[in-house]
């Protein structure tokens, strides 16, 4: 699966995911992992959150926010395992493991955004 035809595509996904992750993820985590649970800001109520999440723009935003960074992770983690642990013999396993997670996450995100 890793050959000269496919590698540019994976790298592009990695780059796009990296940009999305860099710009949008920190504030997302900050709000919902610190600001809301620690009471730094008024927690949005369940109903208003559902209304916000239901809007098609939000759903599209969340879908991109979830899927692209996962491909960023897959590519980077694949290389980290390959280089860091030197497990070349497990190359196929690592590849399908990493991208499997990314694809599963993307499918889950798509499903959730559709039924939201």
């Amino acid at each position, binding site marked *: 699966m890793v050959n000269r035809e496919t590698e540019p595509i994976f790298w592009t996904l990695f780059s796009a995911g990296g940009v999305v992750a860099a710009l949008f993820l920190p504030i997302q985590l900050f709000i919902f992992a610190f600001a*809301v649970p620690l009471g730094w800001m008024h927690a949005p109520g369940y109903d208003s959150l559902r209304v916000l999440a239901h809007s098609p723009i939000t759903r599209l935003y969340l879908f991109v926010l*979830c899927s692209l960074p996962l491909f960023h992770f897959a590519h980077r983690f694949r*290389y980290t395992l390959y280089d860091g642990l030197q497990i070349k013999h497990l190359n196929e396993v690592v590849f399908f493991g990493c991208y499997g997670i990314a694809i599963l996450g993307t499918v889950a995100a798509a499903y959730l955004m559709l039924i939201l």
Partner: protein
Amino acid sequence: MSSHGHAATPAPTSSAQSHAPSSAYTEFHPRWYRPKISTYWWLGKWAYVKFILRELSSVAVAWTVALILAQVWSLIRSPKAYSQFARVMSSPWMIALNVVAFAFLLLHSITWFNLAPKAMAVRVGGKRLPAVLISGPQYLAWIVISAIVLAIVISRG
């Protein structure tokens, strides 16, 4: 005296010849020393440690995505499920874990914006743009986007 001599013995090949290895026999060379690279090679230098940490930030990225998916899932199910999610998010170990994850997210963003200028050799009027003119706007976009998202969530509070 100069020891500029040859280390290996391959005979000079003419440019017309391909560089395929000789098939008839293996050319002699003195026994080379080839050390094996340890699994902990990356601990050998601070630069390598920084590199591996940067690469491991991708795990924090995946973790954050998992949290978002979990949040959306609980939002879909019921108010009870969502408040259960909120309770887990306020538990001390979750907060501690997310502090680490947040630190890695910041590491990712900062290294990403700082490295982006290297990949783009933008030339204006024959001279290369200074790196800060490429990374600066990205930092600005980061701040603006974060402010917008924060404003949206606050306004629905």
